[in-house]
């Protein structure tokens, strides 16, 4: 197992190097000029040129890529063109809100979606099943920002239970942290409830037709045990996979959610950086996202061995 983990981590290095090269090249050919944004609208072309030179943006592509790669290998993601702050610092400032949002969203989504999918499969064809799946379709179809505004209207503006916007770090207490995050987590979670519930239902339907389920039922095992211990355990591999993929998708979904609820997370950092062509920040964030993606996939693989002991590495 340890050898597998080490091997997997080593194989991520070329993947990430390729991602880095791709992103770096993409930014190089993309139009847009951070120096023009910095200089302001009244600046002369000569001013813009001097700022570009001071930022090193006038140097050849290969030189810039080589320097950046060398720094990255030393754990230095560079300095933001706009803020003059280290990219690692900017990411560190923003990682907690995004991680918090992702974790709370997953807890919220999984704790609702898995039972919903199991029950829908158990009651297949009934109004419960149809209702659950209609809810799932709704969750998947309605844009995140629409859900966000509706929830903010009801729970923040009308009922005044939670704030409209902002983020309170966990270090300032669980309750303030939770109050700020519950609406964004519900907003983002709705999409994943839909996704996970549908996969759970489909997989469970398949498993519930297996002989061992019939045997368990014939032996008089209780319905709850049959569903959640026998069947769900055997349906777990695809569900775990979809939850894992969901984590990666959450990063994208978080961009809109963070904007709607004014959460200072990585999503907003990325969008801001792209709009301003803040190359070092874009590169740093993309590199980090790709690392997260690779690690999530590794975790999924490892989880398989827990939920299905027949799987060995």
């Amino acid at each position, binding site marked *: 197992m340890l050898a597998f983990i080490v091997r997997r981590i080593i194989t991520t290095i070329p993947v990430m190097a390729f991602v880095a090269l791709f992103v770096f090249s993409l930014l190089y050919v993309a139009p*847009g000029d951070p120096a023009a944004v910095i200089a302001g609208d009244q600046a002369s072309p000569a*001013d813009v040129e001097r700022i570009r030179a001071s930022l090193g943006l006038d140097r050849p592509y290969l030189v810039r890529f080589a320097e950046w790669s060398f720094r990255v290998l030393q754990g230095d993601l560079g300095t933001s063109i706009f803020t003059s702050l280290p990219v690692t610092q900017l990411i560190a400032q923003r990682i907690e809100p995004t991680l918090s949002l992702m974790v709370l969203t997953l807890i919220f989504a999984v704790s609702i979606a898995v039972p919903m999918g199991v029950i829908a499969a158990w009651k297949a064809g009934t109004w419960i099943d149809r209702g659950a799946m209609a809810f799932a379709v709704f969750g998947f179809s309605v844009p995140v920002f629409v859900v966000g505004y509706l929830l903010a209207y009801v729970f923040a503006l009308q009922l005044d239970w939670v704030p*409209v916007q902002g983020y309170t770090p966990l270090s300032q207490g669980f309750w303030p942290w939770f109050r700020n995050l519950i609406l964004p987590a519900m907003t983002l979670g709705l999409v994943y409830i839909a996704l996970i519930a549908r996969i759970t239902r489909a997989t469970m339907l398949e498993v519930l037709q297996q002989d061992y389920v019939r045997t368990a039922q014939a032996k008089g095992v209780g319905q709850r045990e049959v569903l959640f211990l026998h069947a769900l355990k055997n349906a777990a591999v695809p569900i775990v996979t979809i939850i894992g993929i969901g984590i990666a998708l959450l990063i994208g979904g978080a961009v809109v959610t963070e904007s709607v609820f004014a959460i200072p997370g990585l999503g907003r950092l990325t969008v801001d950086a792209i*709009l301003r*062509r803040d190359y070092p920040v874009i590169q740093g964030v993309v590199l980090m996202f790709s690392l997260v993606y690779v690690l999530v996939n590794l975790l999924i693989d490892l989880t398989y061995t827990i939920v299905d002991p027949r799987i060995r590495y």
Partner: protein
Amino acid sequence: MDRRTFLKTAAGTGALAAAGGLAMPALAQGAAAAKTLRFVPQANLANFDPIWGTQYVVRNAALLVWDTLYGIDSKFEPKRQMVESETVSADGLTWTFKLRDGLKFHDGAPVTSKDVVQSLKRWQARDPMGLMIKAIEVELAPVDDMSWKWVLNKPYPKMLLALGKNNAPCTFIMPERIANTDPFTQITEYIGSGPMKFVRSEWVPGAKAVFEKFADYKPRTEKPDWLSGGKVMMFDRVEWVIMPDPATAAAALQNGEVDWWETPLADLVPILKRNTNVSVDIGDPLGNIGAFRMNHLHPPFNNVKVRQAVMTALNQEDYMRSIVGDDDKLWKPMASFFTPGTPLYTEEGGEIMKKKNVAEAKKLLAESGYKDEPVICVVAQDMAATKSMGDVTAELLKSIGMKVDFVATDWGTVGARRAQKTAPGQGGWSMFHTWHAGADCVNPASYTAVRANGEKAWFGWPDVPAVETEVTNWFNAKDMAEEKAAMGRLNKAAVENVVYCPTGFYLGYQAWRKNVSGVTSGPFPVLWGVTKA
């Protein structure tokens, strides 16, 4: 339902709920709330060097942290701010300035003339008026700890305006060691002598910027008026909360989670006005001037008759309604290049801008010998105002028989592409849309866009000696009458040669909670003198 309509509806229902007493405003208001102002600025404070980066949001934040030598008031007159006194020699060549006593930087060090001189040198390199002074400068040096002199080889009557104007970059005074930084490199230490200290440890670019009251600030005793007078801060702490989403900002203001929103979306203003806890009024009385610029270097707009044809067909109302909607208080037509309502405003020679005349435009286009060259119209779709104006222009050009190649892109790309001098078919451009802050267009001092000095001019590179002559005449004017005369001739020359096309004058609102008092209109948010119950 499109997203914009949805935002309006969502925010609207929130307003009704709030107006009906369903929402309680106590959410975010703690015991110390009256000492903290939560302000939603127009944009993200992404960097904090007001000389290196000249975005308005940086200037606005800098006005809290760094003080200026002079400050203009609402009559556009420069008044002493850090300066105690000034003298100018009879020949107008030697200026001597003296600092006020007791001025301190946030690190406790006294403000000295060495700090001022170095700060002025850094400012000069980046400011159009600073560069003009530099060109006639013999010496800029300290006389003693509190005084410095500026020796010129030619009089510069607009000296005090240069030192007190609110256009970025302003004459922000920094400690000498910080002001030693190359003007094209960003400073990393944010120490000023202004009324607030910047709390760097709490700065999260893109999310939050925090300022704390500077206990040792010594405000002037005069009544505050824009950049002049006493900048007395009534808050211990000012928090800038960056909110990229207008509907969220509207909801947060209705809910009392923020106190003041600098630039509410025009669509959301009617909703905010219905909320009994929120006040809404014009923010910047100097507003903005919508504009599109044509490339004077290449066909078809290197031909003055083609430019005149476009200006003749232009109806400013079409542009303004596309930006501000139906609110007639928010816009004005302007047969001028200058900011309406300001002392030097002139419409001399602007008749062509007053009446849309498509037939006349077509005639002019035919006379010009236009050869059906495509107009590469580069439009930033991520800016509401530029997108609206771009759509109107595309129809305008087609209506007079011009071929349009509409390039929909983002502002970052427009910013880079407009610097290209190559032909439109080879990566260049024919026209792009933008706007100018009315505060910059009050007179020629900081009005880069109206300059027509060819290669040195702003994008589009107009070359009109008659305009430049009048700019010089204005700078050399000895009294108001001479200034007005020069401005009239300047406007006429700019219209005749279509330096660029103004598309109208428009204003924006600001909104604040009713428990906040002392909010005034200004070309920047005036946070001093504001209190909160």
